[in-house]
């Protein structure tokens, strides 16, 4: 970390890059936003926006469970609960004929309600509201290290499994005729999403984490013609929105996550304009 701080000191001699917390946050954003750019491409392909939203909301219950068991850091309780929820949704979806969004709606509502009921007991919900908005600037060097690990994990996952995920998203029948186990793919992907969303929720915030996943990919779709462009554009957009959002939030004194999302929305509108103008 010290090395990183020195590097930043030299290449970014700006006022916003001076405080230690900004250096940490910048590194966190450089690690986290590309992950969202990558996973987002598939979330949009699979039309899973609602699903990832549900996973984000389930973090509340994870925190509540952590509180009940008296964990100092609720992260593990959150991850375990999110993974269980993700698997439950995939399984129930395959077992019943009900529409996917209905099932997700039921699970999501149950998770949020349960979380709020437990956390609001005795009127103490206010101290958890930081999870709703998130705080990028509070990230510690140890957490940046965790993010770096997650980043490598996702990259390896994305290299190993991408082609199969893509085929399943295009046509499950086609994928199956090529020997791909669809249910396994679905569960693996949803579990990875659950972990990523949960790990990053304390910095990005429950309310807006899903937009960070969906908007850059949706914007990339407007201008990309193949999978490679889709990835490059999506990752570039998340990086651009991430960095401008961080700087903007520093000068305006606003919540970083929400500022990033606003920049992402702005880029989305630009791509939409490009598409109508030139597409």
């Amino acid at each position, binding site marked *: 970390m010290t090395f990183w701080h020195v590097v930043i000191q030299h290449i970014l001699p700006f006022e916003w890059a001076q405080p230690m917390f900004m250096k940490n946050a910048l590194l966190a954003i450089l690690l986290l936003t590309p992950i969202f750019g990558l996973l987002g491409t598939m979330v949009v*392909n699979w*039309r899973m926006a609602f699903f990832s939203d549900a996973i984000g909301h389930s973090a509340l219950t994870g925190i509540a469970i952590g509180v009940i068991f008296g964990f100092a850091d609720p992260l593990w309780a959150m991850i375990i609960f999110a993974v269980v929820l993700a698997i439950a949704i995939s399984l129930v979806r395959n077992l019943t004929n009900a529409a996917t969004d209905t099932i997700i709606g039921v699970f999501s509502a149950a998770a949020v309600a349960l979380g709020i009921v437990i956390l609001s007991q005795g009127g103490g919900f206010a101290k958890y509201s930081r999870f709703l908005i998130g705080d990028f600037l509070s990230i510690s060097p140890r957490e940046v290290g965790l993010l770096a690990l997650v980043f490598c994990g996702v990259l390896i996952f*994305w*290299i*190993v499994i*991408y*082609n*199969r995920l*893509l*085929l399943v*998203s*295009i*046509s*499950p*029948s*086609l994928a*199956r*005729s*090529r020997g791909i186990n669809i249910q396994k793919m679905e569960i693996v992907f949803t579990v990875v999403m659950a972990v990523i969303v949960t790990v990053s929720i304390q910095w990005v915030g429950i309310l807006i984490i899903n937009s960070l996943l969906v908007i850059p990919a949706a914007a*990339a*779709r407007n201008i*990309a*013609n*193949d*999978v*490679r*462009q*889709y*990835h490059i554009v999506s990752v570039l957009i998340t990086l651009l929105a991430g960095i401008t959002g961080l700087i903007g939030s520093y000068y305006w004194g606003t919540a970083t996550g929400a500022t990033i999302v606003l920049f992402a929305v702005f880029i989305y509108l630009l791509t939409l304009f490009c598409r109508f103008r030139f597409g």
Partner: protein
Amino acid sequence: MMPDVRGLRQGKACGLCCTRIENFSVTLNHVEILRNVNLHIHCGELTALIGPNGGGKTTLLRAMLDEIPHRGNIRFLDAKGHRSGKPLIGYVPQRLNFDSGAPVSVRDLFAASRSRIPVWFAHSHRLVQQARDGLAHFQAEKLLNRRVGDLSGGELQRVLMALALEPLPDLLLMDEPVAGVDHKGMELFYRLVADLRQHYDLAVILVSHDLDLVARYADRVVYLNKTVQCTGKPAEVFENRNVVQALSVGQWDAALVNRQFPQNGGVTQQ
């Protein structure tokens, strides 16, 4: 490096390797959809699967693809006895379920199906060349860099057929294209499929609705309604009294009136 299977097996079908479907039964939600389906399919043959809606045509295809739970076996026997076991099945889906806005090119589709190199990272030149050759067989090589979502119904059909032939399967399963293809397009499609089974060493099973075209292009017809009710040459099946009665809709009349079939020979009935 994988051997070029196509080079080895391209050419006229030997007509000797076969796939046997033995006692296929499917029960979904306590409703019996298929019962004891037995079929014997030779390479070089175009088998048309006909029957009423809900008769189990698509279910049979899905069961063969292991997409739904079923009882019974599917076995492949090579002409020289070199290989037996599960056949390599190619599948041409009727439609893709992704939205047309997805930035996936035809090249991506081929690369994702054939290689483990993530398509967002790189494409193997050898595979791209192979895909181009495969598409060329269907006069579709110009589509390689197009977005899959931008293709017309006919173009998509050709791309999916080329894709299903990589690697060359023992058995090709396909649905007749539904909406969006006019009669001329249909005729073209049947000619293409008939061509396929002549030029490649494989068997084709086609779920069909257009009996007129089936009569002209299929080598064999299977009339499926819960089980195999009747199978044989087109002329034989269309002469069969039970089949005619079972589906006396306008389409059938047209197919029968327009054609003089020879007297039937060995129609198998079950």
